[in-house]
């Protein structure tokens, strides 16, 4: 009845640009869920010393339940997951993914949809396009890329979308005049941005200057699982000390040590799991405690929150 993780098999890998690989994932047992445009999955990768969890947009047709597609750009910076996906994963390998979740859905009430993609930020829009076309919606795609380096899919998009496609190759000095897009917008137009932080920030501040309401601007905000630093939690009354790893929640660690904590939502809203804090500094990540309660530092929600100090002494 409830699906936690899905095991998928990597059935194809394609190098679509020098730094971008596309993975086709097929289901191992049941069929895959259909999903809504803009959805992502969290892929769990079992590295040698640690488990990586990265969120990737689904870029296949939302109605296609035979396979999911994701594209992974090799990041130069520390995120180990992309290196793992590029260097370790081979066709035939199994991966664990979460069911699709959506933090970046189209506003179907919009009169017109303007999609602005930077580089690999094209991925969520790949799932928008089939549905926009099925619904006969008014839309255009503006694709900003750096030559062949990040310009995967440009030829097929140009062909498929025709006059609704606008490409800008920064290597060729081509620039997208976003201020003009804003100035010439029709009433009821919604803008969607996915790409590097700098692009999103730039578009947001331009929108502000041009008087585009914030409600008409959408950008991808990943709710990637939030690991943290390892720490220890001590139960005051019993003196039992439980280590909490970087990739697990305090609640999970306590449960693994067979210490029962009442809980319902496991998402920081229901208030069931609240524990009293006797010692230690808390990193609050819940929506349950009020600002004043958080500041007081005497209560913690172990399902999501963590410790800033090395040890937290609590009472259940």
């Amino acid at each position, binding site marked *: 009845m*409830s*699906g936690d993780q899905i095991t998928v098999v990597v059935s194809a890998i394609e190098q679509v640009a020098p730094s971008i690989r596309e993975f086709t994932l097929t289901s191992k047992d049941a069929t895959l*869920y259909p999903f809504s445009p803009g959805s992502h999955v969290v892929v769990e990768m079992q590295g040698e010393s640690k488990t990586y969890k990265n969120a990737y947009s689904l870029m296949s047709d939302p109605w296609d339940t035979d396979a999911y597609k994701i594209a992974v750009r090799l990041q130069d910076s520390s995120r180990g997951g992309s290196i793992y996906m590029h260097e370790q994963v081979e066709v035939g390998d199994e991966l664990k993914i979460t*069911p699709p*979740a959506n933090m970046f859905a189209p*506003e179907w009430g919009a009169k017109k949809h303007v999609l602005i993609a930077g580089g690999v930020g094209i991925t969520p829009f790949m799932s928008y396009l089939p549905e926009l076309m099925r619904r006969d919606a008014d839309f255009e795609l503006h694709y900003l890329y750096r030559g062949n380096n990040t310009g995967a899919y440009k030829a097929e998009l140009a062909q498929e979308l025709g006059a609704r496609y606008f490409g800008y190759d920064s290597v060729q000095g081509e620039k997208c005049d976003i201020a003009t897009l804003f100035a010439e917008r029709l009433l009821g137009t919604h803008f969607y941005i996915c790409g590097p932080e700098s692009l999103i920030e730039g578009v947001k501040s331009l929108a502000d200057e041009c008087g585009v309401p914030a409600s008409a601007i959408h950008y991808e905000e990943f709710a990637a699982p939030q690991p943290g630093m390892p720490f220890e939690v001590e139960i005051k009354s019993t003196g039992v000390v439980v280590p909490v790893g970087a990739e697990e929640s305090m609640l999970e660690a306590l449960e693994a040590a067979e210490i029962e904590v009442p809980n*319902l939502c496991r998402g920081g*809203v229901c*208030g069931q799991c609240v524990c009293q804090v006797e010692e230690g500094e808390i990193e609050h990540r819940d929506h*349950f405690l009020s600002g004043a309660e958080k500041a007081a530092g005497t209560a913690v929600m172990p399902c999501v929150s963590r410790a800033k100090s090395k040890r937290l002494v609590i009472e259940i």
Partner: protein
Amino acid sequence: MRVAPKEIQTFRDDFTYTNSPEAIQRFPFPFPEDDYRYSVNMEPHTPKGGEGSAYEKFLDIDEHYLSEMKERSLVLKDMPHRCLAMEHMDLACWDMIERCMVSLAEDYPEHFVLECDGDNWTWENKLLDIKDTFVFGDSSTLPMPPMEYMGRQLQGDFALLDQREGDLFLDAGIITCPADWSLAFDAGMSFSEWHGPVPMAHSEGIFERALKYLTAIQVGKPVRRLNWTMTINARMDTSPETYHEWGHERTSVTPENVGEKVYLRVELQVLDRMPRSNAMMFSIRTYLMSLEDIVSNPEWAKRMHRVMKTLPAPLIDYKGLTRYHGMVVDYLSQFDKAN
């Protein structure tokens, strides 16, 4: 043992509705503690309570299936607007059809059969003697609009909430057994708007937290909560639209008949993310149990006495219990002598 659907009983006029001993035993009693306060009482909708429990399956079909479907058709005949779906909810309606048909066919293969050949689907409901073939996603291939088609075969009310701007909007539903609220009135409203009349919970931040939780619910991870109120006689349709038929019944309660007249009305609410549309499906499965039947379980009788005695005045008022609340407490006190 699961309870099998039985012959049609009524939720109006002569009120022939009864609960069998098995139905009493599996009743989702809503009070985990001696006092009741509003809270964000949500938990994952995973099986609980073993075989035959109301929490065993995604959708609970019980002995009242035929009676409730009959009652629904009576309501819709008089008031077709008790079912509505805004145009942009069509895809969500199909998500709902898939979710409900697939789970019914899996959970109750003796009653429901689904055969899918690509988009050509054949659905058989043996309880209602329905067999239809249609094209998935094409509303013109169903004998009636998708929400109504599915809703007429499901126990409990259903709403579909469109998710946008970080909020939920009540844009579709089939609501024929509401606890005093109106779909026509609430249609198009946001989460905090349609919850407007509820006392205490807004200022306690309950709805704010609940909404954050709901908008993050993922596909395949449904959650449930219980809500409750009281109803005089086993009346399913306590809607504002029919208030003139039931409002006055509150004055008919006496110390002599309180046990049989007053029903505890429990709603098992399930929230489930719809995959294609990103909408939320909200199902409200209503269970009615007379106080007489409740007190056949001594634990329930005691617990309920304590809950009723300590119920905050704003809740007594909002739930419409004012006229007979005292009689309920007096009646229950005989089963809780220590208190």
